[in-house]
């Protein structure tokens, strides 16, 4: 069942005045910690759903790490995103085990079902599609993660059903808001 909380139910307020106190709080909590960049970026993304340029520039300035290096880390890890993501982040594992057990076919089915390619977000902002290289659940291959929920032994034929559950949950959430 779908038990996950949406990554970001609402479009976050990205104006400078509201962004800075939030970022300061995150940065302060890592004050003086070596290697703070990645945890800070994770916290910011958890909060905002993605990493907008002004937030990255602020992090670069406050942590005194060159912007090129911050961007280097953001672009290196597929977990980070600089564009808004949908309510549900769907990640398909294409690690070796998942790949040989049909991960690629699962991805194709998802692409078709969602009408988007890898790295894109659906027009209704409900779904984003990404690929991953091993979630450490090879015994359950092929694996799909939707936000923090792991779906095991996924079959292409079951994709429609899986996505429909999230779709109706997401629509209901929106109506409540």
């Amino acid at each position, binding site marked *: 069942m779908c038990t996950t909380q949406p990554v970001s139910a609402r479009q976050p307020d990205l104006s400078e005045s509201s962004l800075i106190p939030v970022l300061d709080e995150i940065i302060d909590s890592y004050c003086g910690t070596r290697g703070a960049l990645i945890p800070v970026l994770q916290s910011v993304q958890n909060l905002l759903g993605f990493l907008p*340029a*002004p937030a*990255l*520039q602020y992090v670069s*300035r406050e942590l005194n*790490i*060159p*912007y*090129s*290096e*911050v*961007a*280097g880390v953001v*672009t*290196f890890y597929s977990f980070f995103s*600089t564009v808004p993501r949908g309510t549900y982040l769907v990640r398909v594992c294409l690690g070796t085990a998942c790949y040989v057990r049909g991960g690629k076919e699962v991805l194709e089915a998802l692409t078709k079902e969602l009408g988007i390619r890898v790295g894109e977000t659906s027009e209704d902002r409900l779904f984003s599609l990404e690929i991953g290289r091993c979630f450490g659940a090879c015994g359950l291959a092929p694996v799909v993660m939707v936000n923090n929920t792991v779906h095991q032994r996924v079959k292409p034929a079951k994709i429609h059903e899986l996505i429909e559950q999230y779709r109706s949950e997401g629509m209901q959430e929106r109506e409540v808001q």
Partner: protein
Amino acid sequence: MCNITINGIEVEARDGITILTAAREAGFTIPTLCFLEGTIPQGACRACVVEVEGAPSLAASCCTPIRNDMVIRTNTKRVRDARRTVVELLLSEHEGDCQTCVRGSDCELLLLARNLGIREIPFNTVNPVQQIDRSTPALARDPGKCIKCRRCETVCAEVQHVGAISAQYRGYDTVIGPAFASPLATVACVQCGQCAAVCPTGAITEISHVQGVWNALDDPKKHVVVQTAPAIRAALGECFSLEPGTLVTGKMVSALRELGFDAVFDTNFTADLTIIEEGTELLTRLKSALVDKKEVALPQYTSCSPGWIKYAEYFHPEILPNISTCKSPQQMFGALAKTYYAQKIGVKPEAMTVVSVMPCTAKKFECQRPEMDDSGYQDVDYVLTTRELGDMIKMAGIDFINLPDDTMDAPFGTSTGAADIFANTGGVMEAALRTVHALVTGRNLPAEDLHVRPLAGLEGIKSAEVTFTDTVENWRFLEGVTARVAVAHGLGNASDLITHIQETGEVFHFIEVMTCPGGCIGGGGQPRFTTDEVREARIAAIYKEDEGKTYRQSHLNPAITEMYEQFLKEPLGETSHHLLHTGYTGKELFTQEV
């Protein structure tokens, strides 16, 4: 000490050094690509692998420390095969348009491929199409030629504390470039060109002004004058395989005449002029502080180095009021050439082309700053790096080595030894102290050979003190005052010095900053490859040039005296203010949304 064996020969080496250092010191050759002297080794390229007895795999010699009794082999089949594979793989991702590439005989990748005997590339690779980035005035990036050795990134972040470029994306898609692989012009790059100086291939180079200069020289309606920075004469010879530190001043003048310049001048002249203006500015600031008890921005920082100016505008806008308002010698020259000199010879400024030969890439940026047009036109039209001048001399088929010596033209050809040493770290400060001391006390600086030894050499941050005694009447307020001066070269050192002063409140009156390690002799436009050994050789040559001069203090330059009598009237006067001085504005670190 450790006893190690390299290729069967017993070698004694210092504890803690790497196999690479030990081997090189003992005279063995090990090829490297990503290794950069003076910085933390990356071990990224694996071109330097060697065999260590007992070790299961080959070791990257640049980052493997030696141990006692280590047995190392640098020339076995296994080593040669591994190195060849490494370079073949690099070549498979490298756009090798070697016939037309700006890097020729100084391309390290080409040389390495030749030395390893590579005759074909066994890997068929379709590489991502890469855009050449020509967004800045001084530097072009061609990621297709990049082999991801990351020397540029290291020098930009660790040595210069700028961090304009870093590795973006991952694996096959990796680009060494600005954040999100955006154009260089959209990020805080100071255009110093140290990246271009350390790049082993043609992936980062200066934006060429060669064709523009040829066009001007070929245009009979143009009066084309050239100025040469002090650092060129100690390095240009390297373009023609002369030893680093060979002085070629006279040959350089002959070559410039053969290239067809209408007049050959010396940036040294405006370096002398800088000392008069900047020294007077310092004394004026000191007077305001000590006599008039006014709030004055001290210490005063030098302003000759355009990379440093851009750095301060981005990263230390709080010290902009402290930076001397003097334009750099290049820009003073341009402004005077298109006014004073143009009038003197009856040429309209619009018919004059001013070309600079600089050891620097940032000078290409500087001449295009919008405020550098006090003559009514862009004061300096083209800037050639030392390398570009070398290329032009070769294009013209000039036999540089066998050229006779010639001398520079009047009125901008006469200079003092104080101007020569502008090329070296510590040189501008020494030149300033020579003149300031003489003006204030009427006596020469009390230093052996007029050299302020604590300010010379490659130490990153240096300082000295001078106490004024028996002062002349005009400057009596400085009686007994000890002037404290500091020198930093390489922007990382400059940044450290600024932070130190801000945190400790240590008092300095005058600070020299040069963007590049070693000063202009180590500039981003100098012949490759500039190691500390090369820096020291060029520095020694410049001091030799200084010591050979009739006059060694800027205020004694008779041509400068004449310039003030005929044109400028007085230091910091109205004409000076208009033509020789400028202002600075803080720049936003993030100019463009990504």
